[in-house]
């Protein structure tokens, strides 16, 4: 037991202490930083000088500082907490318009918006406009996502593809898509295909960028392991690279859906007589803020729905990430 460096504080001080040691003992009175001197017990301070030196009892405190949280607090469900912000916004809207603080010409009240919704929904005009907008977004997203995926796969798998595709995509990405509108009109005209093309052109980039990054981000060690255990080129793509790139693709998809709705607004302001964007432009002409706000709410709800769909996709396709056992 000769190598035990510190004896308990209760151990009797050795009598044969060398005369040089008392110099270190007065350190006992020195308080530790942040601890009141009164809390320091009397006794020699710890010292490395010798194995037989007694150790001072350190000051103790409750590390939680008395702030105990034992999870006994009333818990509000997550969705209720998340709805608080929108509810406050809604309340402010209602109060501001209801008390006449803001006139109906500037901002319609929730009631007026609901009435406008009832009118439009009643005579079928709303569904007419909504469906044509959905069709435009649908085709645009379909073409854009397909093109983005194909390009990302070309650039991700083949080194030659990367040289050709990636540099051009990075250049084209810097051009604001809206600036393409004049060119699109010259090329394709102002019909439906021009609108779909604009949306597709905007959707390509987020899908491409994220999928390409996803493919390139696949762990080389997993590719190596796959190769060791006999996967060929196709097997590697199917079992390792595609699943590995999926999270990136889904992020790109979610982003691209937001872009699609944004571009729809622009596309539907050029030579249209139907669609939510048309309704919005008309409402502006008629000075109907209730209709304008109704259109904005519709955009918001559609955006939320798209997000929800991708979330559900993520939940089922990426269940391995959270260890969801599924069935």
């Amino acid at each position: 037991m000769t190598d035990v460096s510190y004896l308990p504080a209760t151990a009797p001080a050795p009598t044969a202490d060398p005369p040089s040691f008392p110099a270190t003992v007065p350190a006992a009175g020195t308080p530790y930083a942040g601890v009141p001197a009164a809390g320091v017990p009397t006794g020699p301070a710890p010292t490395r000088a010798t194995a037989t030196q007694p150790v001072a009892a350190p000051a103790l405190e409750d590390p939680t500082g008395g702030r105990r949280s034992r999870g006994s607090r009333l818990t509000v469900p997550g969705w209720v907490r998340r709805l608080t912000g929108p509810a406050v916004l809604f309340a402010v809207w209602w109060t501001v318009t209801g008390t006449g603080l803001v006139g109906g010409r500037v901002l319609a009240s929730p009631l007026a918006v609901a009435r406008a919704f009832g009118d439009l929904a009643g005579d079928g005009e709303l569904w007419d406009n909504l469906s044509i907008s959905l069709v435009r977004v649908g085709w645009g997203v379909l073409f854009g996502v397909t093109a983005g995926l194909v390009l990302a796969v070309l650039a991700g798998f083949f080194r030659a593809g990367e040289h050709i595709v990636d540099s051009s995509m990075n250049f084209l990405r810097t051009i604001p898509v809206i600036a393409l509108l004049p060119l699109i009109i010259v090329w394709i005209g102002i019909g439906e295909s021009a609108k779909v093309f604009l949306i597709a052109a905007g959707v390509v980039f987020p899908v491409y960028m994220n999928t390409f990054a996803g493919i390139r981000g696949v762990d080389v060690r997993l590719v190596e392991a796959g190769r060791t255990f006999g996967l060929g080129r196709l097997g590697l793509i199917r079992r390792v690279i595609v699943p590995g790139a999926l999270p990136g693709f889904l992020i790109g998809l979610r982003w691209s859906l937001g872009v699609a709705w944004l571009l729809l607004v622009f596309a539907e302001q050029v030579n249209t007589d139907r669609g939510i964007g048309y309704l919005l432009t008309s409402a502006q002409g008629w000075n109907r803020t209730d209709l304008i706000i109704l259109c904005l709410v519709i955009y918001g709800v559609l955006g939320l729905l798209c997000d929800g769909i991708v979330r559900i996709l993520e939940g089922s396709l990426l269940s391995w990430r959270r260890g969801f056992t599924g069935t």
Partner: protein
Amino acid sequence: MATRLHRHVTTPTADAAPVGAVALADRATGGARAGSRATDKPGATAEPGATAEPGATAEPGATDEFGGGDTGGAAVRVRGLRRAFGERIVLDGLDLTIGAGEFVALLGRSGSGKSTLLRILGGFDTGIWGDVLAATRRSVVFQEARLLPWTRALGNVTLGLSGKDAASRGRAALAEVGLAGRERAWPVMLSGGEAQRVALARALVREPDLVLLDEPFGALDALTRIRMHALLQELCRRHRPAVLFVTHDVDEAILLADRVLVLTDGRLSLDVPVSVASPRRRTDPAFAALRSRLLAELGVDDLDEGAH
């Protein structure tokens, strides 16, 4: 798995396929393969004195045991292996033979080239000089389990297997490593030890002639490691593959291996059979003696650790 390798093979021997034959043919032997030792000794001309020594310690034991012939039941045959990364020579004229069913532990300081050698035998590294032959049916267990996170445990075990009985073989392999009933678990749900057991099952389900283990238990806690040692011994006793076990843990090497190698400066500086009576105990004087010898070879004084 065999087909991939055989693409490179020019002259396959009875039970062993050359690894990295392209590199060999291009850079070292110019097409001549087994037996052409004189042609590929770039290190020998530089340091003639040094090459004689490891050859003297490593070669006779190996050749005596396995007949020394090219088809003498060896799972690994390496002659004059060189590997350099830029200016740094990691393996410098290394010779190694591992017999079928032999459990060999490879020790070395970090950076000594243990993992490089294993990667070469696994076929991951083709920038080599020298003759390298490794069993065609071989599998690797890495330090990290390297399971595909998006594939359930069973899918990971049967990865790359084909045939109708793949799933049942995978199930049997999982049961053998004590993971029956966990077939549908995702890798994120497995503990470190469980994931490594899945990796073991994935290696053994292929019925390999050679298993390469690269510090497989290095990331596990001490208690799990003890259990994994027992499991690995049991699996090796049952399947009898040749094993190259790379580790930096001297005790682990003595506990498990039939033969322990020490890699120093690109060559095998020590090649000793483990003659500790089994069950091997750390308290056995033979164990302690071998331990001291290996630690000394690794440049560590075992008194530093406070060992008996």
